[in-house]
Each structure stands twice: as structure tokens, then as C-alpha cells.
């Protein structure tokens, strides 16, 4: 989230799309009801289903799954063509004024630089025009025909309300109401928050979905202000933390990059990333990348990391290609993987195309499941009739189940969607023989290291070099680990005058204290400050809110630097004054930046210096145009899902799906066509369950006991399906059976002249647990990955449906 | 042979001094006393749940839970038991011409002026009224009882139906207890009656006085 959960109460318009906050984030949703009740905020929901959030909405607009970019681009066009944008914000705080170099073009759905055989773009034409001094060229009048603003107007003009209706199936009046409510916030007086989740992410064009939303918020001036933001609602209590700490496939902790094969030396790695400002007087915070990276390496390799050995850079693995989950299983499917360690991971249920997942797991020599519950994956070899129809005798994979403690049985921290790190204390003893994850991994590490010490072998050096100096190497404590993430001074740190500002051994108070000479460590710069010299701030529980704006500055610690709203410099105009009294947040008081939050800015830089508010960007401003930072285009464009009910893309007939989305070689043939599979399906979770965990919890099973399929009354009639009847749903990859929930909440849409039916498939069920047995929902879903994030397209694919004869429950 | 329309199996006159008349067979008497016991238990257990001031009666059955549980089962026993009585007695309880006259002279009945009453068969009109009232009320009670026997049958009726049933059950129960009071009182008041149900016999004089037509039939039957 750019903002925080508690900040949502400051919104005047709440827009939920690509998510279902009431369903998946009921506790956070309280701030939506709060904004409605106390501020009179309007809530609008755009979704293929009239869902639980829609039940709370003032306005609901239906949409065909997978057509979000058309819809959002329609809003962009509405704002631009009606000039309903926050002009001053756009001019000064976005790259609207930047001039794009000649040579860029967009034609028939393709940007310049496309290589069809490689399915990639050469992105060199997607850059700014630079002046001789190396800075980007701008036209503050926004009139230059190649400035981003003018390119945008041209790029989005095709997305008329009529086109939105034709492509997305959203009735024009319902679309226009959304656009009008969005526009009502483009003025600095009112704010809109966008709440989304995996309904935007899990598409072959997922990253661009979110980007289009960000563009809308920038055009309205809704980034950096209270009640605004593009707010990703994270799906687990600590998935923000797990992303921060570096489980992204190409990242190390703190969103620093994992070295690539093309970066043989530390300097070659850092050189590519020590971004220089693109405008005068900008700070470009990434200039500090080197300090963060060296501190990280110092944490990893301790005293063994020295300037002479590039701080141990050579011990870091070098990535040839990102190993995301889809690729992991593709490699496994090719028989190239010996063993898999699943730590809190149930891939048989959660990876697209479970038929392939089972086949891949069957080729492993061993599988380790570290989990508090027995997962379906750990039992993948077991025949559960139609729900998991495997030939056990043919599977040779050895499975180890290592029971681990649950969150309540260990100390540690959660980082929530608001980026707020909150400590939690162990509340119960471990159950039976369960051990903490940290203990199991430490045990494993210690044993493997001993074997290497004794026998040597490939990959020996990094393992022997790792610094493992915990008080008890077998039981590193959560406290020690958070301290390590934070970082400390390794020698006395002195300022320019030679005064000691941080004594050796002291914890660092902020990442500003990190150094690139090996005198500090700290494996995750964004968390620095959470465990500073004053102790563990994640343990703070003071729920006072002096400003009344939902800041709660002394509750836990929000990264970075305990900042609750990111880019909050943008809450004031270029002169440093609040855009309006209603949205007063951070402002220049003549001496420094002040307000209820921690400024996302150098606190003493005066407005006159015109340093941009988006200090993490080289431009100093936000990007409506992303240059070459995204694989599939500097602007978004509507592409159909890989499985689409339409024969062609109604907007760009020559390009049907995202031209750079990733599909593995052998997977191309497993996509189905609308001829055999005319119905659009989308998957989602239910509020009664948490993923595939709570199907093992009795009370959750009681309140939602059995897999079901949501269908419209019209489709039920067409197919002869009675409410509560068992139905079979199948795609080109597999089938599931569930009870029919026939509902007015699903409606057929008219898309490009034809009626398109959609069905909803909740994902929380499986063949292990207390709920009634069900096949993995992902036996249906296609293994195509988003062009940027490689997230599978779970939210839009094709199926067919028929009633299963038999008595109706 | 004349049809002895209100003579039941086992009815027999034994001349002598005094004359004795067999009125009820052993089977009929056992049947009656089972029914009587059930009815008393039902009244006690039912009244316990009918009015708070009588809730203490649940103590006779252990506690409230037992009382609630056992009451309907006793009702079932009573129903079948009474069905036995009904099969035995229904024919003799068919309404006859003289019963109307008898009823019309209820005042004479109550004042003991039996000479003013018509001769009646095995049962007089009052007994017949008791018999038919019991029959109708027991059917009413068993039907309404099933509707409110929630332990086993709650799903077969709606709550509004149950409400009507529970009211009907209460009213029928009050009625049957009143009928029962009449029945018992009559047995006490008309001396010599109780022996009919204890030993199965009455004296000839009793039969002559109260059921002369029946006696004549019995005697006449012998004649034939």
C-alpha cells in the first residue's frame, strides 16, 4: 500500500476493483465502512461478480474478467478528454511534461521494438529525449507533441465509453458513473483510494492493470495524500513482510537485486543501479544503493566480507533467469529437480495447472513439507478418487513432513499491507513435536555446513562463508533476526567533523546511517529503524492518533522510516502549501517539512529548490510513462486473456493476448478455445476461509463446508442446472465438481455483440481437511505468466459447465 | 334368538342369593386398569407442565426432564390400551332411543329417582357420553401430542401448527380430566359399581337397579 489501512478513512471515494476487500480483507474493510459512515464517502465496486464488497457499495459496475485495462483506460480517456485532471499536480509531480524521443511508436497493438520470435521488446525507443547536459527534456506547457501528456491523450483516445461497453461488457451509464466519481477527486479537495488485490495481479497483463490504476491516481493527484493511493491489499498477514525480506525471485531483502550472470563483479552490479538524477536538483534515493548493498553483504558474510573480496559478492548466486513458481515447476516437470522444500507452501493447490504440478512432483526424488498442517501437496501421491486420481504405485517421491509451529506459537513480527511491522509474542507452546521454522532451518544449515566442512563439494565456499554468529546457532531468536535486518555500526561512525554519531555495536537508527565502506551492516535497509538504538519499535502499541488522520505514528513501525503515507511530499503544492485545508498533511513551515507523518523527503530541502516529491525516482516525479521499466510497454494496452471468449482482440485485431507474456514451450497447446469452452471463469477466495489452510479448521469448515460454483440464473436455465445441484466444470486442462450456487449476483454480459457468461470458482477447497473433498481448483487454470511478474492468469480463463445427473441436495 | 345388542362377551348372570352378574372379564379389567393408570400418570405429568403451581408434580417422575420425556410414551401406551377398551365396548355404547329419554331426565338421575328412568342396557347414556368423550379426546390428544412431541417429530409440523396443537392438547386434557372426574365420581356415588372393575362382578340388585334391560337380556339370553 502506498497509504495505510487506517488512512482509508480519509477517502471521499473508495474504488475497489481487482479485489474484494470485504471478502478477503474484512478487518481492513472496517476503514471503508468508517469512511462511508463518518465522511459520507462513496464506495464503488467494479467486478465480474456482485460480491461482498459490492453488497456494501453505493455503485456497482459489472465487468468481463480480464478486460480491466480497457475499463481503466476508458477512465484515463474520460479524465484527459474532459480535462478533469489535477493539472498542477500532473504538471509538476508526474512526467507528463517529459518529452519522449523520436522513434517511439504504437501501432495495431504493438509498441516499437517488438521481436516476434523471442516474444520480447527492444525497449530502447521508449526513453526520454535528453539534452546535452544529460537531463531529460521537458515542456512545462504540456504542448510538445511528443511530451508524455500529448502521447497519452493520443494513446487513450480510442477508449471511449462505447468501446469500454463493447470490450468490458460494462453498461455505458454504469461506466460513466465510475468515471465521474473518479473525476470528482481530481482537484486537491477530495481524495480517492483504490483498493485492489490479486484480481488485477493474476492476469497475463496484471502489472499493467495496476499501472493503469496508478496513472488514474496520478492524473487525479491522489498519490501522497491522505485518503488516496494505490493500495495493494496483501493476501496474508505477513506477505508484505515475506516480499520485503526477499522471496521475490530476483531480489534480495529490501528490494535490492539478486546478482545476474551478466554482472560478474560488484561494481558491474552497482554500476547499473546507482541511478543518476534525470533532472537538476533531484536526490534520487537510489544513489544510496551501494550503501544498502554493502551493508547487506556485511550482514551476510560478517567479518569475511571485506573491500578486498568485494564484500563477498562472489559468494552470491548469479541468476541466469528468474525462478518463479511457474518456472520452478516447469523445470521440475522436465525432470531436472531432485528435491523440493515446501515451507508453508501448498503448490499442488496454489500453482496453475495442477495436472502438471502432480506430474512434476512425481519426478522428484524427495519432497519436504514444512507446515503446521498436513497439506494436499504432502499427500499428492495418495489416491483420493476423482479428487486426486493418481497411481500411487508409480510415484517414487519420498515425502518428509516436518510439523512446524503456527504463528501463535512463536515470537516474531508481521508486516501488514500498510507496511507496518508489528511484533507478536508467543502465546502458546508448540504442539506435539512441532518445531519453529527457524529451528528446522538452522538445524539443516548446521548439519549441511558440517558435511561441507568434512567432505567439501560444489558450492562449499558460500556456505562456509555465511556469518552464523547467533547466540545459539541452533536457535536464532526472532529478536536477533530483526536486529540483524535493522543493522548496526561495526566501528564508531563519525560525522564530517569527526564526532562519533553512532558507536561501534550500536543499532542503526535509520538507513541514512548506512555506509558503503563496510563499517555498517544491516540486511534489509528498508527496515532500518525498526530495531534502532532505542529498541524494538515493532513492539509499540500506543494507539493514539494526535492528528486524527489515522496516522497512529507510535503503533509499531512502518517501513521506510516509520512513514505511513508514501510520497507524502506530494500532499503539498510546489510552494509547500497544502493543496487544500481538507487535505492538509505534510507542508513546509518555512524551516522544514512538517505534519503528522515522517516526510518522504529530505526534511530541510525548501520548496524553492524544486526537488520532486518522488525521491525514489530518477526523475524526481512519478511516471505516467515508464520508459523501459516494464516488459510490455511504456503505456498499457488492452490485450485479451490467453483464454478469451472472443476470437480476436476487438481493439487490436492482430494482437490477441499480451505479446510478451510468458508461456513455456510445451504449454502452448493446453489453452482451450471459445468454441469448446465458451464460458469465462474466475477464481477467488471466500471470507470464510484462508487459502488452503482453514479447510483443516473445524469452525471454518462449518461456515463454508463445500466447494461450489457461482452461476447466473440465465446460465443455469440454459444448462438446466438447479440450485444446489452438483455441476461439472471443465477446462482444457482438468475438471472440478461442485454445488451450483445460482444467483442474481452473476449476470451475463454483452461483449462485442455476443452474450458472455461468467462463472465464479472459489479456491479454498481440496482433498485434505475438514471440508468436503474437492479437486484442486487449479486443475482448471492456465500456466501463463504475466509479462512482468510471471504471476499466473488465475482470474480469467475458459471453461464449460454441465449438470451432474443425480439428486439435488 | 334375540340379538343381545348390549351384552358383551363374558357377561353372565349367576342366580342365587344374592344374584351376581359377571360384568367385566379379567382381560377387560386389566385393560381398564392399565388405561386408568396411564390416564392418572398422564394427568399428573401433564398438569405438572400445565401450571407452574403444579410443577412440583414432576418430582413424582424424578425431575422435569423425565416428566417431559415419559409423558408422551405413557400417552402412547394409553392410546393402545384404550383402543383395546374401545374394541371391547364400542358396540354396547352405541346410542339407543332410550338414551335420549334418560338424558332428558338427568335431574332424576342426579336425585336418584331411578324408577322414573327408562330401563337401560349395559351402559346408560351418561356412561356412553363418558365413553365417547374419552374416545374423541384421546384421539385429539394423541394427534396433537404427536405434533408437539418435539423430541422425535419436530420437523413434521410448523411452529404455528405446533402452537395450535399445544393449545388443543391443553384444552382436550382439561376436558378429559373433567370427564374422568365424572367417571370416577359416578363410580363412587353409585355404590356397588367399583366391584365391576375390581372383581368383575356386580350384584343382581345393582344390575336390576341401574341396567335392567341388560339384566333382562342376560336372563333372556339364558332363556334361549
Amino acid at each position, binding site marked *: 500500500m502506498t497509504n495505510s489501512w487506517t488512512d482509508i478513512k480519509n477517502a471521499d471515494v473508495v474504488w475497489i476493483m481487482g479485489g474484494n476487500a*470485504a471478502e478477503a480483507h*474484512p478487518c481492513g*474493510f*472496517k476503514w471503508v*465502512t468508517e469512511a*462511508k459512515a463518518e465522511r*459520507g464517502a462513496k464506495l464503488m465496486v467494479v467486478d465480474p461478480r456482485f460480491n*461482498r464488497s*459490492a*453488497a*456494501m457499495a453505493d455503485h*456497482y459496475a459489472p465487468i468481463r474478467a480480464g478486460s480491466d485495462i480497457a475499463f481503466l483506460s476508458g477512465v484515463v480517456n474520460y479524465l484527459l478528454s474532459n480535462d478533469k485532471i489535477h493539472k498542477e499536480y500532473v504538471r509538476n509531480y508526474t512526467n507528463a511534461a517529459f518529452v519522449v524521443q523520436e522513434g517511439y511508436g504504437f501501432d495495431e497493438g504493438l509498441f516499437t521494438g517488438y521481436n516476434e520470435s523471442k516474444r520480447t521488446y527492444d525497449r530502447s525507443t521508449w526513453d526520454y529525449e535528453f539534452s546535452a547536459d544529460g537531463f531529460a527534456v521537458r515542456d512545462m506547457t504540456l504542448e510538445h507533441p511528443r511530451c508524455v501528456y500529448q502521447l497519452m491523450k493520443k494513446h487513450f483516445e480510442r477508449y471511449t465509453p462505447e468501446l469500454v461497453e463493447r470490450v468490458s461488457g460494462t453498461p455505458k451509464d454504469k461506466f460513466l458513473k465510475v468515471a465521474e466519481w473518479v473525476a470528482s477527486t481530481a482537484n486537491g479537495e477530495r481524495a480517492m483510494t483504490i483498493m485492489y488485490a490479486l484480481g488485477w495481479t493474476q492476469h497475463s497483463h496484471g502489472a499493467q492493470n495496476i499501472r493503469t490504476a496508478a496513472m488514474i491516481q496520478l492524473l487525479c493527484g491522489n498519490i501522497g495524500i491522505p485518503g488516496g493511493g494505490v493500495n495493494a491489499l496483501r493476501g496474508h498477514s505477513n506477505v508484505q513482510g515475506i516480499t520485503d525480506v526477499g522471496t521475490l525471485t530476483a531480489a534480495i531483502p529490501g528490494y535490492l537485486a539478486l546478482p545476474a550472470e551478466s554482472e560478474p563483479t560488484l561494481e558491474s552490479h552497482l554500476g547499473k543501479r546507482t541511478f543518476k538524477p534525470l533532472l537538476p536538483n533531484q536526490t534520487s534515493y537510489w544513489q544510496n544503493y551501494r550503501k544498502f548493498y554493502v551493508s547487506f553483504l556485511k550482514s551476510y558474510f560478517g567479518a569475511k566480507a571485506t573491500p578486498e573480496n568485494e564484500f563477498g559478492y562472489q559468494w552470491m548466486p548469479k541468476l541466469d533467469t528468474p525462478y518463479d513458481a511457474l518456472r520452478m515447476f516447469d523445470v521440475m516437470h522436465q525432470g531436472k529437480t531432485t528435491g523440493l522444500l515446501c515451507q508453508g507452501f501448498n503448490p499442488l493447490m496454489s500453482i496453475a495447472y495442477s495436472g502438471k504440478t502432480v506430474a512434476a512432483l512425481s519426478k522428484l526424488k524427495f519432497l519436504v513439507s514444512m507446515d503446521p498442517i498436513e497439506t494436499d501437496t504432502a499427500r499428492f501421491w495418495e489416491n483420493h478418487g476423482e479428487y486426486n486420481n493418481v497411481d500411487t504405485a508409480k510415484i517414487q517421491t519420498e515425502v518428509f513432513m516436518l510439523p512446524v509451529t503456527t504463528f501463535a506459537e512463536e515470537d516474531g513480527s508481521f508486516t501488514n499491507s500498510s507496511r507496518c511491522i508489528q511484533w507478536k509474542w508467543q502465546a502458546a507452546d508448540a504442539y506435539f513435536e512441532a518445531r519453529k521454522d527457524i529451528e528446522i532451518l538452522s538445524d539443516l544449515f548446521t548439519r549441511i555446513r558440517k558435511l561441507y566442512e568434512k567432505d567439501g563439494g560444489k558450492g562449499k565456499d558460500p556456505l562456509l562463508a555465511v556469518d552464523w554468529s547467533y547466540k545459539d546457532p541452533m536457535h536464532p531468536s526472532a529478536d536477533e533476526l530483526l536486529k540483524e535486518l535493522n543493522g548496526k555500526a561495526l566501528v564508531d561512525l563519525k560525522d564530517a567533523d569527526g564526532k562519533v554519531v553512532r558507536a561501534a555495536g550500536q543499532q542503526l537508527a535509520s538507513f541514512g546511517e548506512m555506509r558503503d565502506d563496510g563499517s555498517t551492516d544491516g540486511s534489509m535497509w528498508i527496515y532500518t529503524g525498526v530495531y534502532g538504538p532505542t529498541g524494538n519499535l515493532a513492539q509499540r502499541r500506543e494507539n493514539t492518533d494526535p492528528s486524527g488522520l489515522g496516522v497512529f505514528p507510535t503503533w509499531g513501525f512502518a517501513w521506510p522510516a516509520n512513514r505511513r503515507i508514501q510520497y507524502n511530499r506530494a500532499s503539498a503544492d510546489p510552494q509547500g502549501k497544502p493543496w487544500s485545508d481538507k487535505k492538509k498533511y505534510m507542508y513546509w513551515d518555512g524551516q522544514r517539512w512538517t505534519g503528522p507523518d515522517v516526510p518522504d523527503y529530505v526534511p530541510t530541502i525548501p520548496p524553492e529548490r524544486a526537488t520532486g516529491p518522488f525521491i525514489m525516482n530518477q526523475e524526481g516525479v512519478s511516471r505516467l510513462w515508464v520508459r523501459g521499466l516494464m516488459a510490455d510497454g511504456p503505456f498499457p494496452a488492452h490485450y485479451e486473456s490467453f483464454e478469451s471468449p472472443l476470437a480476436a482482440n476487438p481493439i487490436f485485431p492482430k494482437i490477441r493476448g499480451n505479446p510478451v507474456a510468458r508461456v513455456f514451450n510445451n504449454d502452448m497447446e493446453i489453452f482451450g478455445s471459445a468454441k469448446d469452452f465458451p464460458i469465462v471463469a474466475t477464481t477467488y477466495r471466500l471470507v*470464510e476461509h484462508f487459502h488452503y489452510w482453514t479447510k483443516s479448521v473445524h*469452525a471454518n469448515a*462449518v461456515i*463454508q463446508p*463445500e466447494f*461450489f460454483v457461482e452461476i447466473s440464473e440465465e446460465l443455469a436455465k440454459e444448462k438446466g442446472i438447479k*440450485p*444446489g*445441484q452438483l455441476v461439472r466444470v471443465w477446462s482444457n486442462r482438468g475438471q472440478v465438481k461442485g454445488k*451450483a*450456487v445460482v*444467483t442474481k449476483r452473476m449476470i451475463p454480459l454483452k461483449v462485442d455483440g455476443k452474450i458472455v457468461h461468467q462463472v465464479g470458482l472459489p479456491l479454498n477447497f481440496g482433498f485434505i481437511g475438514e*471440508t*468436503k473433498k474437492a479437486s484442486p481448483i487449479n486443475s482448471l487454470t492456465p500456466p501463463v505468466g504475466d509479462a512482468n511478474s510471471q504471476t499466473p492468469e488465475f482470474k480469467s480463463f475458459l471453461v464449460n459447465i454441465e449438470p451432474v445427473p443425480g439428486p439435488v*441436495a | 334368538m334375540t340379538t343381545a345388542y348390549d351384552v358383551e362377551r363374558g357377561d353372565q*348372570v349367576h*342366580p*342365587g342369593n344374592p344374584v351376581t352378574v359377571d360384568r367385566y372379564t379379567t382381560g377387560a379389567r386389566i385393560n381398564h386398569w392399565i388405561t386408568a393408570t396411564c390416564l392418572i400418570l398422564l394427568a399428573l405429568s401433564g398438569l405438572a407442565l400445565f*401450571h407452574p403451581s403444579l*410443577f412440583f408434580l*414432576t418430582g413424582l417422575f424424578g425431575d*422435569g426432564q423425565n416428566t*417431559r*420425556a415419559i409423558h408422551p410414551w405413557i400417552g402412547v401406551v394409553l392410546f393402545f390400551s384404550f383402543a383395546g377398551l374401545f374394541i371391547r365396548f364400542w358396540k354396547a355404547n352405541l346410542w339407543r332411543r332410550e338414551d335420549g329419554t334418560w338424558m332428558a331426565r338427568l335431574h332424576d338421575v342426579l336425585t336418584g329417582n331411578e324408577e322414573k328412568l327408562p330401563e337401560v342396557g349395559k351402559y346408560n347414556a351418561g356412561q356412553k357420553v363418558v365413553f365417547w368423550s374419552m374416545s374423541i379426546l384421546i384421539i385429539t390428544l394423541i394427534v396433537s401430542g404427536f405434533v408437539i412431541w*418435539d*423430541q422425535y417429530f*419436530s420437523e413434521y409440523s410448523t*411452529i404455528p401448527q405446533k*402452537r*395450535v396443537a399445544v*393449545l388443543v392438547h*391443553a*384444552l382436550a*386434557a*382439561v376436558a378429559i380430566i373433567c370427564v374422568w*372426574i365424572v367417571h370416577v365420581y359416578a363410580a*363412587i*356415588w*353409585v*355404590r*356397588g359399581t367399583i366391584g365391576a372393575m375390581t372383581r368383575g362382578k356386580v*350384584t*343382581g*340388585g345393582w344390575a*336390576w*337397579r341401574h341396567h335392567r334391560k341388560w339384566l333382562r337380556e342376560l*336372563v333372556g339370553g339364558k*332363556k334361549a
Partner: protein
Amino acid sequence: MFQPIANPTTKPVAPKFGDKDLIRRSASNITPAAQRQPEVAKLIDVSKCIGCKACQVACLEWNNLVEEVGINVGVYDNPHDLTPNTWTLMRYSEYQNPESGNLEWLIRKDGCMHCEDPGCLKACPAPGAIVQYSNGIVDFVHDNCIGCGYCVKGCPFNIPRISKVDNKAYKCSLCVDRVAVGQGPACQKACPTQAIVFGTKDEMKKWADFRIKDLKSRGFKNAGLYDPPGVSGTHVMYVLQHADKPQIYANLANNPSISPVVEIWKGVTKYAGLAAMGAFVAIGFLHHIIAGPNRVSAEDEKNAEKLTEGKA
């Protein structure tokens, strides 16, 4: 935001009310507490309810109830009805608003309404099995329950359920044990959106007014409070978007009151019945005194002998 109820201390707290605060006790004559505690109420704002069922789970957990895992029958309602273990249940209704043309998904939390004039208590024959505290909470005392099911018939909202296991009646207690120590009911505590709030009845009515104003501003011109006068008001109240049509909320009673059949049964029948039985006994007794026994005379016996003469 409605001011949340503060967490309790970890030290034991003396209950704020108990047997001395009863105003009604089933099948018993009691002197109602001289001074009423402030009436409490739970306010369920249907317009804020997302139907997450956290209240259902909280109720199961706080009250140590174990419900069976059922099946899906084509709706979101699970379990499908209240049971002896499910004291509260979300009921989902899809309502096509004829005026706005909009679909509305109305989600109502069903459970005991804690009537000011409780039909269950009126119907109950077991002394002390149902009690009403002066703050309005109607509670079942299971030690005294005999499982007759009369409360089911007395209730205008179809709430109590009789357990097949122990043959006792069960329903929401409004977490009387929590309220007694200054907490709100478990469902209220678990509700993420403040669709359930708890406080004094006066506070709840005031808060409801605030909510109704908001709903009216959003076009729900018949928004209102459900506090049915037919049962003298309830201690669980709803804020409804369409207070003129309670029945669209999964058949919420339009104008509930204790059924007249129950009133007759538990009113006049109870007294008239006893009187009738007493009268019959009395009449018999008097008759016996006045008329004396009806004896068989020696003459009768003679006549019988005469009739049977020679028949031996």
C-alpha cells in the same frame, strides 16, 4: 466510529448483575428487581454487514459450541438454520430493488432478539429455566430446562432450538457472562466493520439515528430501526435499509408479537382449566353431600332374584 469497549483487565471482576436483578422468571412468581439496570442492546446494522460470519465463529468459540460440518445446498447460508449449537446465523437475501433497479445483497444476522416481552419465557413451564434480567437480557438456565420445546412455540422469531443430545433448549444468551463483566457479546467483539455494536439501549437508538441519517442520504428513504413494539421492543435491534419491508431480510417478522394462540394457552386456558377441573371435583363433592350415595336396595336384589328365579 462507535467507541469500542475497552479490553477487560486480567483480574477477576465481580459480575455487575445476577439473580437479584431478575425481572421475570419462567413459571415463577418473583418480585421484580426494584431498580432496573440500564437496558442494554445489541445493534445490528445490516447496511454495514459484509456477511463474513466472524460473529458465527466467535459465538461458537466463546460458547464452546461444536457444530457439524454440513454441505452446500446452493446458498451461502451455513449451517442452513439455527441449531442447538448455532445460536447466530448469517442469512443472505438477494433483493432486486424495484425503485432503483439495483441488486442488493441483504445479509442479516439472525439470532435471539431478547424481547422486552419474551414469548419463550411466557411459554416456559419450568420454573427458572428462562429468566430476564433487568437490563433486558433473556437467558436460558439450562439446569432448569426440561426440554419441552414450549419456548419454541412461544417465540415470535423462531429462535430456540432443542438439542437432541441433552434435550435442552439453546439460543443466544447475549453473552450474558461477558456483559456481566462489562464486555460486549463475542459477536460484537469479532465484527470487523462495527455492523454489530453494543451498549445501552438509549445509546444504540442514538447511534441508529446517526446511521439512518447516512442511509437516507444515500437514497434509502425508508431506512429505519427495527425495534418491534409488538414485543414491547427488543434488546437486539436492526438498522434496515428498508425498514418498511422487514420480510425481504430472509423473512424477518413484519410486526412480531407473541402469537394469540400462545396468549390463550398461557393465559386464560391455564386458569380456566384448573378452575374447570376444580369445579368438577367440587360439584361431585357437593352432589354427594346433598344427594348421598346411590345404593342398591334390598328390593332391587329381590327383584333380581325374582327375575332369575329358576334359572339356576
